[in-house]
Structure formats: structure tokens, C-alpha cells
């Protein structure tokens, strides 16, 4: 059988995924969504509502800030910017994940 992506597992890391996409530049909603989709080779059926919830949560806790862009044409875009606190959270979450992955690999390995 084809392997498939565990949505539940990924959803638990939405905040970190959003932070990762903002590390190098500020982005707006559609752009963040696209970045995530491209990186997963469009295999992950991510609901945008989940992302919006993540933005609200991250902004409320001071991990990201938002501002309106000054588009001359078309609708205004709301950009998100990762804060120092957000970068710190990203680093910590990444370390946690690497550790968890190692443990899981050990647990799921065949030579138990």
C-alpha cells in the first residue's frame, strides 16, 4: 500500500510549520498556504481554517505580528512577521521534534 501522510500528526505541528514558512520573509495567508502545499508536494490536505486559527493563536501569544501591505492594485494583503520569541519557539519545537523522531524511530524499529 502507498504510504500516506498522517494529517493528525501534522496538525499538531501547524504552529511550527507556519513559523518555519516565515523564517526568511514575511508572507501573507495565500502565500503561506502555497508554500506549505508545495513543500509537501500537494499531498497534505490542509484546511485553511486551521491556518487562520494558528495565525490568531500565534499572534495573540506574541510569536508573530501582522500588518497590512500597501498593495497598489487589488485587495490589501495581511502579512505576517515572525518575532524573536517566535523564532525561539520554532527552534525549541524543532529540537523537540528531532528528539521525538529519534525516540519514535527507535520504538518503531524492527530490532526491538
Amino acid at each position, binding site marked *: 500500500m502507498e504510504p500516506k501522510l498522517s494529517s493528525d500528526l501534522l496538525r499538531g505541528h501547524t504552529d511550527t510549520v507556519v513559523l518555519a514558512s516565515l523564517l526568511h520573509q514575511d508572507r501573507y495567508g495565500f502565500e503561506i498556504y502555497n508554500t506549505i502545499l508545495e513543500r509537501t508536494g500537494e499531498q497534505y490536505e490542509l*484546511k*485553511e*481554517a486551521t491556518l487562520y486559527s494558528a495565525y490568531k493563536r500565534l499572534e495573540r501569544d506574541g510569536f508573530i505580528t501582522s500588518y497590512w501591505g500597501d498593495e497598489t492594485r487589488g485587495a490589501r494583503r495581511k502579512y505576517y512577521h515572525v518575532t524573536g520569541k517566535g523564532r525561539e519557539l520554532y527552534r525549541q519545537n524543532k529540537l523537540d521534534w528531532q528528539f521525538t523522531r529519534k525516540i519514535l524511530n527507535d520504538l518503531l524499529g524492527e530490532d526491538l
Partner: protein
Amino acid sequence: MNIEEHIDAMFAGYADNASMKDFREELCANLTEKIESLKNRGLDEDAAMKKALGELGDISVIADELSQKKRREVFEIMYMNTRNYMSSRRVLLFVLCGAVLGFAVIASVLGWMYSKEAGAAAGSLMVFGIPPACGLIFLSLTQETAGKEAMSWKRALMYSADAAVFLFGTAVFWMTYLNGPNGLADAVAVLIPFVLPSAAFGAFLVLTETDRSKPWVTALRKEALERENELFESLSQERRFELLSGALWIAAAAGFVLLTMTLGIKFSWLSAVAAVVCQMLLVSAFIKK
């Protein structure tokens, strides 16, 4: 439906506050762009819209959070949703009381037209009208609505009994006045045993009434009050504003009378216009910068 209409539908029933507007604009911009990009990839308008909305998922959690379930028209909901709280037995009783009351009115009008006796009309209104009127009072007080808890049936019963005595006294007053040998003198005397005590007891009931509003209505009312208070720098500023507004309108009334006496009614309305203008200036001077 275009994208804005879809978004409107998604947020229908949620109050429009600043953060909600902000979120709607963000959502609209992102969805529009997404639909454009889907169309560039060869999807037609409808399919692109459907795909975009499908991938959006359920935004109600965010909307709930943003609006804190502030509903647009408190009073609309308070009264429109009453039906949800009414059993069919209560509906039947309401209708029955209404019908009997209607019958009482018709009977008394007919009685008056045929007999030309106002006393007879008042009599039939008393006999057929008072019971259903009291029934309606009892039913509406003990009716739970979306915004109000029901009154206890004992207290509601006191209200309707009090109303019965009051209405009976009023009817007796009219009948004595119209048919009695001494006219008004007897009629006024009749007020003492019925109308007076029932009015006093009614006033007592109203003054000792507790607020039966449901918690969400109380919370909303408090919020509205706070919003109003926020407009002013301090409580003393607000008090000063109220006093000045009061003085302004008393002056306007005086000006109206004065202008009517000196220049005539043709010009006196100008004092009301001047007062409105002054009130606006007062508001703009007092509201927090």
C-alpha cells in the same frame, strides 16, 4: 454567488466588530487570489470557487472567537425566538385569551350601539374582558423567552389578580359615573376600595421586581454601558456633559415658549434646531480625543 456573498453567508448572525471586519478582509483577499490562481490552472469559475471554499474548511471556530457570539439584534432575538420556548398548550391558551378578549370588545361595542347605554358596554367589557386580560398577563409573565427567565407563577398570579381588581374598579368607576344617581361624586368614591389599593399594590410589585434577564443579556447590557463610558475621559466629565445637555434642552424649551410669544409659532421651531446644533457641539467637545 460571488466570493463576498459567500463570506457574508459564512458570517451571517455574527456581530460586525473591528477584528471581525479585519478577518473578513483578509479572508476575502486570500480567497480571491486563490480562485484566480486556480482559474489560471484551467478550472472554471464555479469549480475554482468550490475548490477554494472546500479547502477553506470550517471557519466557525474563528468566527465564534472573534465575535464572542455577540448577536446583531438582541431584542429581535429576544422576541423572535420566543416561539422556541412555547409549548403548544401555552400557544393554545394565548390564542384562547386573545379570542375571548376580542369577543368582549365586539360584544361591548355591539351592546353600546344597540342599547345606546355606555354602562351596558362597560359591563360586558368587565364580564368578558377582564378574565382574558388577566390570563394574558399571567401567561406573558410566566413565559420564558430567549432573553428573559419566566416569572414564578405565584408572583405572576399576584400581578394578574391585582390587574383584575384594578380593571374591575375602573369598570365600576365608569358604570357609576355614567349610570349612578350622583355621577362623578360617587364614581370618585368608588376609586377608594378598588383602584387605589390595586394601583398601590401594583406599584409595590413593580418596584420590588428583580431583573429576570438571562446572563447573556446582562453581559451585553454591561458591555454597551462600558462602551458608552469609554467615550468620556472620566466620570466627572460625563456628569458635566449630562448636566450641560439637560440645561441646554431646558433653555431650548424656554426659548421655544419665548419665541412663540414674541415672534409667533413660525419662528419658534428655530430654538429646537439651535439646541440640536449645540448638542452636537457639546458631544464633539466632550468625547475623548
